[in-house]
């Protein structure tokens, strides 16, 4: 009797199993870190468009906050049940997963979709690892010196093009009781931005890349030049006091209140200010220090990858193809003011600042991601601590360079 009773239950269960495995084949799991309100909305919109185009596919979108995502992705990738597609950062962080064999190449998609024609060549270097495409660049933003137009107008200042002009602007501002640069270094990376730009402007993007990859010692004389320039700014009160007490947003308040005039920051600075201030914000390229050095810019790029153990690789590749298309990219440009790599995305989707940024990038010789996106995570974390020490004791830059070198050797061994 017991068996008789069990049989229908078993039947139902096995049916359920069959059924669920059928539906599973139609489910595409996408995990992203687009957790801020605007990116969250844009990502959902993208998924909706894809589902509309592919009625038989059900996309399961899981959004996790940035920092949590960075930890969780390591667990997902090494588990047997990873997502089909996940959002990720270009540069060293992408390379890390490629080196560990945790992600799947999709060179076939790249060729089928003819992405060589659609995506600028500069991006290929961050997408390809040993002739295979692993990373689809999807959106990016630029770094620049942001400033308050009203303050510049009040003191008759122009956007500085060279280092000397920048120093002059700074002196004028200081004479009028305004701090030239706002910054909050509690989370350290804002200071790393200064290192990036000073190094690229003084020593060029090639040297910068080598340094970021740990191929040049930090004790190199050329690095000393970076610290000397930076030291001058710190010692001459170009930055707000007690910067280490503020997060980047708290540091921004000096600028929104009009106590500071400029901030070296990414395009996302606009996400953090009121509309009134936004209208008063403008930006210029980090001034040229040495005319003979090629111009490099930080251009952090976000994109998508496929885990090596993705349950539905074919579906994942189809989604990647969609993300590479005009339809799959324009939402991020239109709704968030980010730049997108696909060249066929029409210019009218960009607002005025975005077009200015685009023009700036087009006149750039080489691209970097960002200090902690280009570097090994441990080396980035520990050397950024030392940049904080430099900020406090700029005199000691020589011993700090040696300490940075010790970190490099420890990580590289």
């Amino acid at each position: 009797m017991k068996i008789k009773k069990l049989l229908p239950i078993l039947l139902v269960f096995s049916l359920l199993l069959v059924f669920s495995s059928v539906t599973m084949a139609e489910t595409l799991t996408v995990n992203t870190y687009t957790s801020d309100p605007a990116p969250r909305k844009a990502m959902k919109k993208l998924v909706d468009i894809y589902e509309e185009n592919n009625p038989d596919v059900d996309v399961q979108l899981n959004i996790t906050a940035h920092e949590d995502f960075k930890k969780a992705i390591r667990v997902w990738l090494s588990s047997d049940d990873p997502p089909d597609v996940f959002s990720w950062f270009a540069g060293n962080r992408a390379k890390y997963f490629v080196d560990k064999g945790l992600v799947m190449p999709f060179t076939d998609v790249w060729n089928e979709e003819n992405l060589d024609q659609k995506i600028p060549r500069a991006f290929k270097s961050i997408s390809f690892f040993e002739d295979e495409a692993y990373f689809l660049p999807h959106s990016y933003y630029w770094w620049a010196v942001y400033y308050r137009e009203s303050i510049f107008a009040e003191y008759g200042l122009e956007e500085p093009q060279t280092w000397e002009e920048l120093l002059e602007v700074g002196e004028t501002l200081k004479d009028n009781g305004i701090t030239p640069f706002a910054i909050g270094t509690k989370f350290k990376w804002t200071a790393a931005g200064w290192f990036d730009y000073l190094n690229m402007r003084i020593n060029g993007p090639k040297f910068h890349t080598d340094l970021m990859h740990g191929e040049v010692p930090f004790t190199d004389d050329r690095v000393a030049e970076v610290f000397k320039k930076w030291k001058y700014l710190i010692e001459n009160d170009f930055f707000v006091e007690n910067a280490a007490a503020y997060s980047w947003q708290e540091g921004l308040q000096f600028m929104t209140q009009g106590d500071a005039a400029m901030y070296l920051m990414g395009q996302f600075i606009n996400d953090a200010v009121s509309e009134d201030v936004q209208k008063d914000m403008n930006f210029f390229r980090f001034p040229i220090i040495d005319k003979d050095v090629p111009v490099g810019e930080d251009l952090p790029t976000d994109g998508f990858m496929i885990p090596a153990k993705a349950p539905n690789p074919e579906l994942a590749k189809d989604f990647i193809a969609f993300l590479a298309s005009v339809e799959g990219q324009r939402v991020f440009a239109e709704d968030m003011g980010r730049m997108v790599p696909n060249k066929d995305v029409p210019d009218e989707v960009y607002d005025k600042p975005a077009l200015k940024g685009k023009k700036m990038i087009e006149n750039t010789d080489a691209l970097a991601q960002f200090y902690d996106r280009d570097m090994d995570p441990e080396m980035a974390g520990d050397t950024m601590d030392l940049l904080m020490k430099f900020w406090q004791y700029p005199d000691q830059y020589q011993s700090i360079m040696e300490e940075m070198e010790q970190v490099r050797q420890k990580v590289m061994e």
Partner: protein
Amino acid sequence: MEKRKVQWRFLAVPLIFYTIWVIGPTIYTFYLSLTEWDGLTDPNFIGIQNYLDLFNDSIFYTSLVNNFIWLLIFLLVPVVLGLFLAILLSKKIRWAKGFKAAIYSPMILAPVVIGLIWSWIYHPKAGLLNNTLTYVGLNFLTRGWLSNPETALYAVIGAAVWRHTGYVMLLFLAGLTSIPPTLIEAARIDGATAWQRFRYIILPLLKPATVIVLVITMIQSLRAFDFVNIMTRGGPFNSTNVLANYMYTEAFRNYEMGYGAAVAVILFIIMFIFIFFYLRRIREEELSV
């Protein structure tokens, strides 16, 4: 015999959970501390290399020293202050209940919230502390409390002390209620001074409460993490780092799980030694009485 079996049956369920969630991971952490592991590929056994590296690691020493400074201040300030407040507020004074509630209330808040509140108090420009100092004419004392490596650690500990004092006070208050007032009254009639009453009657009778306070204070100061992580993240340049935070950054920022585990093991041993010897001494004394 039967009774024993029943006991074990009751114990079995919590024991299983305890083994899975506490003892197991602890042992696994000991094993991990002997490996190099990035959290992705398989752990690579390297013997005691992590510990050898630790002994040459200046950040490890900074964190260790900071933990002991933390412990010292915690044993001094909140314990003494808490005891003082408890005795004061156990007297029949006006508003005693209100004061008790006010002093205890920080304990209700999560440490994260307190860390944020104190970050605002320490805010160099708009903060309560610097503005008050300016207001009373002590401008020369104002500074970036959390950004200056000389003051940052003490500023963070200050926030933690604020939270802990109320807790200590409450524990002592509970201890004080268990002392029969007749005893103190009798001493008073016999002509004992206030200090004598405190030293020879209240303090010895408060011993059970004191033991709990000291153990909790030690644990709190050694496991310090939340305040550091919220207020300074161990910065500027590690001047406020403590072992628990260092373990966290090594394991989850630098992806050196093995190295982080080694820090955890050291922290575990320090805590274990302190608490083990302390509790053993207490037990011995109790038995000898």
